[in-house]
């Protein structure tokens, strides 16, 4: 029992960690395209870890499945949103940021 709670705590804290990374990413990354990367990947993994953490404490099968369903929908929503924002930015001619020392890199 204590082992499950420990695992749950680990998953929840790791999840929050990835949410923090995602937010840090959209603050640090240089342009809108790279920020979408940070947000879609880090936040979705963060949500997934939190969902799996809560899953271990779920008291019935429908509740557990509902948690997974919410994650699935959030993934689709986030991937669609990221694509739409990126496409809109591209159409509008927002230039992607490029590394300066490209030739050496």
């Amino acid at each position: 029992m204590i082992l499950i709670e420990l695992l749950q705590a680990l998953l929840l804290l790791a999840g929050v960690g990835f949410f923090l990374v995602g937010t840090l990413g959209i603050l640090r990354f240089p342009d809108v395209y790279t920020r979408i990367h940070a947000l879609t990947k880090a936040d979705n993994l963060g949500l997934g870890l939190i969902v799996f953490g809560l899953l271990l404490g779920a008291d019935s099968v429908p509740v557990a499945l509902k948690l997974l369903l919410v994650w699935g929908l959030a993934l689709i929503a986030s991937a669609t949103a990221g694509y739409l924002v990126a496409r809109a930015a591209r159409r509008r001619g927002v230039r992607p940021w490029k590394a300066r020392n490209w030739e050496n890199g």
Partner: protein
Amino acid sequence: MTWLLETVALLLLVTLALGLIRIWRGPTIADRMLAAQLFGTTGVGLLLVLAELQQLAALRDVALVLALLAVMAVLAFVARVWRRESQDATEEDPRE
């Protein structure tokens, strides 16, 4: 377990608040549209944690609806605001 869930909920709120800095600073509208994604995912996580913390099963349904609404919000924004504003901008050119 309660203190842990409380900490998690609080930290999620902090990430949401910090994310607002980017929304405020922009600089392009696209950066501000990221708010929909940020609030969608973080809000869903927060609601799921609160559902467990307060033993309110209905909050999971709220999370479900929020996930659906997040994508609707972006769809509406792209279809209406952005497209109208960029009508005078260059049209789609596959060769950049």
